């Protein structure tokens, strides 16, 4: 299984309005960045050269891991997508 190909095997109805919004300034000062390895969909990427955190909500599985793992409460918004949007499981 290649996580880069998540859209090939899990369906999403992507909302243009992100349900998770990150204050990336907080991430710059984070001592742990547990979100980058813990997120099962690799939505968080930290660039060491540029010292920038990138968050992409498109392939978010709405699992809740980042919400629990972030010890700095870097979220300006963390909620579920609007009704009808987001991940759609068929068989799991």
């Amino acid at each position, binding site marked *: 299984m290649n996580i880069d190909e998540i859209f090939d*095997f899990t369906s999403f109805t992507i909302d243009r309005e992100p349900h998770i919004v990150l204050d990336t300034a907080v991430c710059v000062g984070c001592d742990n960045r547990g979100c980058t390895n813990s997120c099962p969909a690799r939505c968080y990427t930290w660039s060491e050269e540029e010292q920038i955190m990138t968050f992409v909500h498109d392939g978010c599985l709405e699992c809740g*891991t980042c919400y629990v793992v972030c010890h700095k409460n870097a979220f300006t918004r963390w*909620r579920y997508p609007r009704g009808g949007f987001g991940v759609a499981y068929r068989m799991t």
Partner: protein
Amino acid sequence: MSKQYQAIVVGAGPAGSSAALTMARAGLDVALVERGTFPGEKNMFGGILHRMTSIEELMPDFWTKAPLERHIAKKGTTFMTAEASFNVQHETTNFDRAPYNGYTVFRPRFDRWLAEEAVKAGATLITRSTVDDLIYKNDRIAGVSILGRTGQIKAPVVIAADGVLSFTAQKAGLRRPKFNADQMAVGVKALIDMPREMIDDRFGLVRDQGFANEFVGCTGGVRGGGFLYTNYDSLSIGLVFHLASLRTSGKTPYDLLNEFMEQPQVAKLVRGGRLQEYSAHVIPEGGYNMIPELAGNGILVAGDAAALCNATGVNLEGINLASHSGILAGKTVIEAHQQQDFSLKTLKRYKERLDLSWVMKDLKGFRNAPKMLHIERIYNEYPELVCSMMEHIYRIDGTPKMSIPKLILREVKERVGLKNAISDALTAWRAL
């Protein structure tokens, strides 16, 4: 949109639908609000529906109507290292006869079916609606607001059955605003397509028999475990990680899942299958000590939202607890309507009901299980110990054999240390 109901249930998972079904059967006008396009669209789990005695009471023919997969006739546990595995299995014809002890199911099908049963009983299902907040009138809960639609749904009482993160319970001030990563786990799962005959042959199953296996030692040193369950023509295979441990491990769930599926003995089990779906979800694994306030003025909390999940290390039980708590919450709301009092004074009867039920008794009985699950050595040293010991026992290489007690002692001393082993055994004993 602003309609008046007698009760609102947030979330059409097993907890919410059971609550709605209970109340609708008693004639209450209930709204069951779900954010998915249909109930179950957002829900994943390992895959075993344990026996649901409380639903059987509501629907005696439950087992013949629900969309179930195979019944679990065979259970196994595997201790694993990168190279070796040691299995123990239990099989009994008792679990091969109705009433079956459990089934594999798919949540998008099962949850949808259960919600439809609530609708048949008279509940109003409102999908594609993410509840955003509680609304109050004169300091009393008066309903909920829906995200995006700037709509409101009104009722004097709300049941928060919105799952593990329960923002509804949080907004009511019933759960702590921040979770403890030590009390939470995340499960990731691959659904693998496989022809039915291949599954039957590979796992030694006939008719509709199913197999459920748990794994220890497969999580790259992160605290957690693995599972593999058989559906009719697919396998559910996945890993569960404790979040405090995963966070600092630097490892990713999908890399570890790939490694797990590539371990030689596991690779043989999944060979020939095709990945069909990948999913993930957080699990409240803190047990009894994690349970939030269960009731407030105008609000009750049921299922995962109330952390009613029992992770004993052998089983992961959630749906049965969710459903039972939902039924008890529903009964309490029915009573509140009879008395026309939705204050905590009446609603706290829910906690009393739960305390008397097997749900709380089980959680209380296993309150030390999370402690055991935090013994780091379970995830590396012990599986290695078991596998290496078995290898010594089975190996024939011209050297004299060591007696088994001596062998155990040597392995324990070498890999864990005697003192640790004794203390771990005590913790495990207390937990179980």
